[in-house]
């Protein structure tokens, strides 16, 4: 008797938990998901770069530097929302900085790479 009641309770718990687990990503799991994404991207970055010829070290450095200016997206979000003057100023400066990083980075990389082009 007691045992079967216990089992029933357990089963009940299980069902609830399973239901929770399946919808989970809204609730408990986002941090883990974000960490997973981070880990995968790190592995990917390592794999991609591992065999690069010295000639391309500098273009890669400046090109990937431009990519790291992705903070621009964060800056746009920060300045865009209505968050008061102080946050606005911070956001505005962040956008200026990040844009310089991004635009300047891609342009200078392109300029550098243009020199390698085989001119026939």
């Amino acid at each position, binding site marked *: 008797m007691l045992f079967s009641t216990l089992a029933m309770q357990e089963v009940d718990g299980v069902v609830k938990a399973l239901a929770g687990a399946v919808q989970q990503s809204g609730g408990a799991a986002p941090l883990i998901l974000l960490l997973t994404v981070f880990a995968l991207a790190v592995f990917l970055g390592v794999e991609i770069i591992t065999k690069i010829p010295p000639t391309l070290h500098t273009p890669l450095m400046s090109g990937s530097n431009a990519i790291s*200016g992705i903070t621009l997206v964060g800056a746009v979000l*920060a300045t865009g929302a209505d968050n008061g003057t102080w946050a606005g100023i911070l956001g505005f400066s*962040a*956008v200026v900085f990040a844009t*310089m990083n991004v635009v300047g980075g891609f342009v*200078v990389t392109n300029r550098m790479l243009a020199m390698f082009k085989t001119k026939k």
Partner: protein
Amino acid sequence: MSPDLIDLSYLLAASLFIIGLKGLTKPRTAVRGNLLGALAMLIAVVATMLDQNIVSVTGLLIAIGIGSIAGTILALKIEMTAMPQLVALFNGLGGGASVLVAGAFLAGREFSERVTSGAGFADVLTATAASGLIGAVTLSGSLVAFAKLQELKFVKDVSFPGQKLVNLLLTVGAIGLGWMLVTQPEHAQLWYWVMAGVALGLGVLLVISIGGADMPVVIALLNSYSGLAASATGFVLNNNLLIIAGALVGASGLVLTRIMCNAMNRSLGAVLFGTMKSGGSSLSDDEVYTSVKSTSADEVAMMLEVSQTVLIVPGYGMAVAQAQHAVRDLTNLLLNRDVDVQFGIHPVAGRMPGHMNVLLAEADIDYDRLKEMDEVNSMMDQVDVAIVLGANDVVNPLARTDPDSPIAGMPIIDVDKARTVIVVKRSLSPGFAGIANPLFAADNALMLFGDGKQAISEITKAFDDA
């Protein structure tokens, strides 16, 4: 734009970043890779701006306009030789942006609501602290690197007793302040900015003691840091795209750092903990330069005439003199007269990795003639005349022989083992590492003093007349 569409655009942008980064690793696809990266960034920014939450579009556009114009001007006007400092500068700006975005988050409305509601969000706070800390180190470290490469007068190699201890204390202090931020969200802004200040100081101290010769490695490392800072910002804003792009750059920067360390024979650990040896001469000039012989363009031309294999080893001086076109002319002339010409490219010749390749490619010199260090060294005994053109540290035999020199252990191009070495430079003054070079006084070495471009042109002329 609906949140779903924005998310999908982010996914697209992330994929393009990956493909672009991959493209950047191969000569054939590098240009396209860079453009794909730029396209991804455009998609990401436009998608973000179409978010309904964005209120003040005007301000935004102004900020973006300013940044774009300033960035483009810098990128287009800069001398090729100053590229590395420009990359350092941009890199610092990126780190600075991370500091500001995390700061703006703490100053924002959503944050204060969350603090008032009392809901725990230690993970987001940790990410905020990381973003500020790493970003600030990147910012100040990059600016110092910039100043060093630009050879600004007010930045000297600074080192003082107990520097490591100070660095350690600052690191611990910054982390401690970050911890305060996480545990006392009510005072988040206070702790945050104090922490950022300490981290700025840390960045300065970490980089300022590092010798200029190791600067490329430092920049690659700071590049990696700026990626990690962006990734941390992504955790703050719960934004996948920032996490992915930042992690890609963080990882690739670290790998690049390691590759470059290997090329210069530095340990990654020494870079990470800011304990690289600084420049400083171990032998005085008088000791080294006892029997320097100099020569003339005519004499060199005569030697070239009886040579079968000529090796040209270019260095920073070729970049300064803009001698690459003169070199091309000499090369073509020699090839016409059946003299074989090869180029020995040291991985850190010049002031940025691949610097020599860029210049020689600009002058249309056949890519196949550019040989990497190892290959050149193994054929050195067949070289009749090696012309060292404005290179110094990368051919300095002290790297092999003097364990106390700042370049000790760096692999070099062994021109001293060629039959004859001609060194083209303006004086006996040292190169980047600031040390004397016994090669100039070697038995088989002859100095051809003068500006690189002019000297090579004179040789070409003398050779052609003969």
